[in-house]
């Protein structure tokens, strides 16, 4: 428990120091609980998520970094590996492929990479996965684009 706190505190300082290091990621620690984090990630360019900002909620276990943090999308996203209702993410490094050498920042990067490269063979969002698996790239992209506009972009006016 002490180790996780020390580690998270170091990551917090790291994030404060290189706030602008990765322009696509903003990691914010909860004011009162260092085990709760929020991240804002920009949708990668040349994907249907381009231009959107997606909010992630981190829940860090006491055994961190030996156990992976729990991450879910708070912003609605149409993606084969993200549960459409709960925002749960199907990503190997958040499950069995986790390594203690990873940080919250690197998890954010991995999620951005997942947005750019959806894995349709292990879908949490069956509609999205089916569109991709049936080869309807255009259908997937337009749906994802629509939800990005609806949920992940600032409202106009």
């Amino acid at each position, binding site marked *: 428990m002490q*180790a996780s706190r020390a580690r998270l505190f170091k990551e917090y300082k790291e994030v404060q120091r290189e706030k602008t290091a990765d322009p696509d990621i903003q990691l914010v620690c909860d004011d009162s609980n260092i085990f709760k984090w929020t991240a804002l990630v920009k949708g990668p360019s040349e994907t249907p998520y381009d231009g959107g900002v997606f909010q992630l909620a981190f829940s860090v276990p006491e055994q961190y970094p030996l156990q992976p943090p729990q991450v879910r999308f708070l912003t609605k996203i149409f993606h084969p590996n993200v549960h459409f209702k709960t925002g749960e993410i199907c990503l190997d490094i958040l499950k069995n492929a986790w390594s203690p050498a990873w940080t919250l920042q690197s998890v954010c990067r991995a999620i951005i990479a997942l947005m750019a490269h959806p894995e349709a063979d292990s879908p949490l969002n069956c509609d999205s996965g089916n569109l991709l698996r049936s080869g309807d790239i255009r259908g997937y992209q337009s749906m994802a684009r629509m939800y990005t506009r609806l949920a992940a972009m600032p409202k106009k006016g």
Partner: protein
Amino acid sequence: MVSDSIANVSIPVASSNPRDFGKKKRANRAAKLKQCKLDARREQWLSQGKNKGSKQELNGGGEACEQGMQVTNEKGQLMEKLAIKPRGEAEENGGYTNTYSDFDSPSNSPTSHTSSVLEGNYSGTNFTGGSSSSSSSSSGGCYSVSMSEEDNEGDDDCLDDWEAVADALAATDKEQEQHNSSLDSPPEVHMSFQLEVSDGKVPAMDTSQQNPKGRGTIPGFPVSFRAWRPDDEFRPQSLPNLSKQYTFPMNSERHYRGGSVWGCKSAAIPTSCPICCEDLDFTDTSFLPCPCGFRLCLFCHKKILEEDGRCPACRKQYKHDTVGGETTKDAGGLMFQVARSCSMISRS
């Protein structure tokens, strides 16, 4: 370069941080407010992203510099240590000109033959006991001339030790060389001078010192030409501890023998465990559980062994023989042999 990057970085950080903190405090912990804050932040961020693309690039550049700085933090410290050295060298050179200008006058004087011997002793006391001699204005400006004369004299009839020192002094223009030798040679130099002093020729020198004829200027620099001994009370505070300096090359040599990317990284950041962020002690730094070179503290290693037992960096299972290497962790060299043999095995 380092100060530049600091300047670059400190500007955006200083400008952005207080604002965000202030915002944080004002926005209380109620969830609604927080959400509002995040939304505002998102919109602000988006609008900023449109407007200040170039600025962000600038910041990114600065951060990159800073990152590099942080990674080479340890190296930087070493560089600082090295950078201090030449400064000491410069001071030494200062003393150097002083003594040479001092040598100049007697060598021009008619009694040069006898005085040269005396000078050997005189300078000897100047190095060791000469710290007590009061500093005085040195007649500089005759550096190059006196140097050649001094060399001649050294060839003539000075003591062997003095010749050696003179040779060493003639090489001072190559600062790096001198720095290296200054690490090695000081004990001998000190010894020789102490011997000379104990010869009992010091009083004669003292009388010549009081002789007002050519000896108006006494080089008062209280330190030897070479490095200071660690226990020397005249050793400047700014110089790093010798023990530290000696331990660092040892470590770096080890890391290089580790010979992998992670080994190099941990050579740059060997101070804390990447998993738990606790400081690594000597046992931990000499502990190399995986041939990939990823270092961690024994505590975290044990906890990982209790779970899946895979290296955090390369995800390979920790092998039993490397765990056996754990028992030889005290003998660093031995452990590295183990680690290297493991890497050989994994390659083949």
